């Protein structure tokens, strides 16, 4: 390719990256920036565009101070706890199942797989009442168990692991079996260590799913000590009086906290997995 053409390609790539990044970031920037404004300023400059819309004239931390005193810190703790425990349990439970679907042959495999897919295709609102009654029977209403346990086994995550594990050539497993390895050893020592990006992706999915949880926590576990982050944010919107400052501050905080696992797991997307090179 001619050097001029290459330079154009590079320029186009950067232009596209920047344009997309700006589009994706602009609303979040507005959210963050509004959280540092006094409540009266948030909408004062919204309707008419001016430099004041983009850059606040007065900066204040009063919104953040306000949410620190309320239920928000507890909500962050609760959501982090619930999300991390769900990820820990879910990684184990769902990857084991994904492995089974990818590697083994067993009766009713096709039916079971369809059932697994089915499990995330039913609208949640239709199952919320029976699920709530079940929580009642188990005595889990208003406990962490109600927030964590129903979301540990996830058809979507099983599907994810299965897709990845199915890409591994069967010969590798045959060789390991001939060498006398048990399936648990194969799973634990061979497959999982090589699944960095998939584990990272599954963790992020489960984390976000719990971090975003809103309706179910309200129904099953909404006492003060169990409040979750999305509910704490929504509490700022009441009918006659919305607390915009607190709303934006808590929403921004939630976004920033949620970004941490993503950034931390970024490195799994740099490592190039070369199973084929192992041959």
């Amino acid at each position, binding site marked *: 390719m001619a050097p001029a053409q290459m330079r154009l390609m590079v320029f186009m790539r950067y232009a596209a990256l920047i344009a997309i990044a700006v589009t994706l970031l602009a609303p979040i920037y507005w959210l963050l920036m509004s959280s540092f404004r006094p409540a009266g300023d948030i909408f004062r400059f*919204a309707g008419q565009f001016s430099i004041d819309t983009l850059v606040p004239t007065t900066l204040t931390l009063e919104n953040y101070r306000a949410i620190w005193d309320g239920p928000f810190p507890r909500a962050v703790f609760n959501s982090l706890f619930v999300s991390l425990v769900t990820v820990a349990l879910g990684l184990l439970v769902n990857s084991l199942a994904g492995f089974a679907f990818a590697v083994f042959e067993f009766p009713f495999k096709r039916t079971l797989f369809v059932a697994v897919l089915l499990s995330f295709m039913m609208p949640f609102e*239709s199952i919320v009442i029976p699920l709530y009654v079940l929580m009642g029977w188990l005595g889990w209403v208003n406990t962490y168990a109600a927030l964590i346990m129903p979301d540990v*086994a996830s058809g979507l995550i099983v599907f994810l692991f299965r897709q990845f594990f199915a890409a591994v050539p069967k010969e590798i497993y045959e060789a390991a079996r001939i060498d006398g390895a048990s399936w648990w050893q194969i799973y634990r020592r061979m497959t999982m260590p090589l699944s960095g990006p998939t584990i990272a*992706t599954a963790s992020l999915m489960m984390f976000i799913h719990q971090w975003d949880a809103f309706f179910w926590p309200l129904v099953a576990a909404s006492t003060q000590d169990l409040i979750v982050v999305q509910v704490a944010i929504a509490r700022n919107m009441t009918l006659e009086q919305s607390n915009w400052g607190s709303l934006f501050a808590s929403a921004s905080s939630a976004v920033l906290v*949620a970004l941490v696992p993503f950034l931390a797991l970024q490195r799994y997307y740099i490592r190039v997995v070369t199973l084929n090179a192992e041959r």
Partner: protein
Amino acid sequence: MKTRWWVPFAFLSPMLIGLALFRFAPIFIAVIGSFFGQTIRGETIFKGLANYVDLFEDQSFWASIRTTLVFNLIINPFQVVCAMCLALLARRPTRFVDVFRASFLMPMTTSIALTSVLWGILLDPSMGPVNGFLRWAGVPAQGFFRSGEQAIATLILVCTWKGAGYWMVFLLAGLLAIPKELDEAASIDGASPWQRFRYVTLPMMRRPLAFVLVADTAINFLLFAPVYVITHGGPNGATHLLMFEAYQSAFAFLNHGRSLAISTIILAIVLVIAAFELRLFRHKEGEP
């Protein structure tokens, strides 16, 4: 592979117990519930197919189906294509690739409820900064969610804003699993970038693409938070998605039988479309 009978069972059982208790049982109850109704005092009465018949005779139900199918027919491929473009852009180690990747991921960190509230404000016809900017730029203020013609397109764009980065993550993982040597070999053989993409990259992306398409389809068919928060099905039914109708049937019209019937229909539709999508991406060896 064949092995002792209890090995697959052992691997599967924790997941099966969880899904059986918290998904299969409630789903089964819900589907059975679609054949029943409730009197106002809470007694259950058997209705047979009456809920379904009522739905099929309801014009607004069919309008919902049409709106939902159109919405999904556009948004699912659109989001997957966007995600693929983002993944391709983000995989090459350009300068600041970390920063760009992080910026693509940002919208994922907002929940769909918060996204709806945020974009509802941003696109508000009089109070929203977007129209403020347009007015300043000399462009007349747009209706966005309040305009019959623009509402569904706006919904698609807002959902894609949130979802593109999310699905990019999966496709990126898949792209990074493709050995560099294959691509390099094709390049040496004189293949153009497009040919390399079509004949080397895409086939190796079958599984991640299948996953993303099926998962995205399920999520988009079940989507209703932006409709509930911003448009309430309007303007004039332009965004009246099936899932919203199911939600309203349960929580506004207190007709749980009807709501469960709609949910069952959604489940059936998604299952059929997912089966079709999996077949589309079936691996050459005959294994989906």
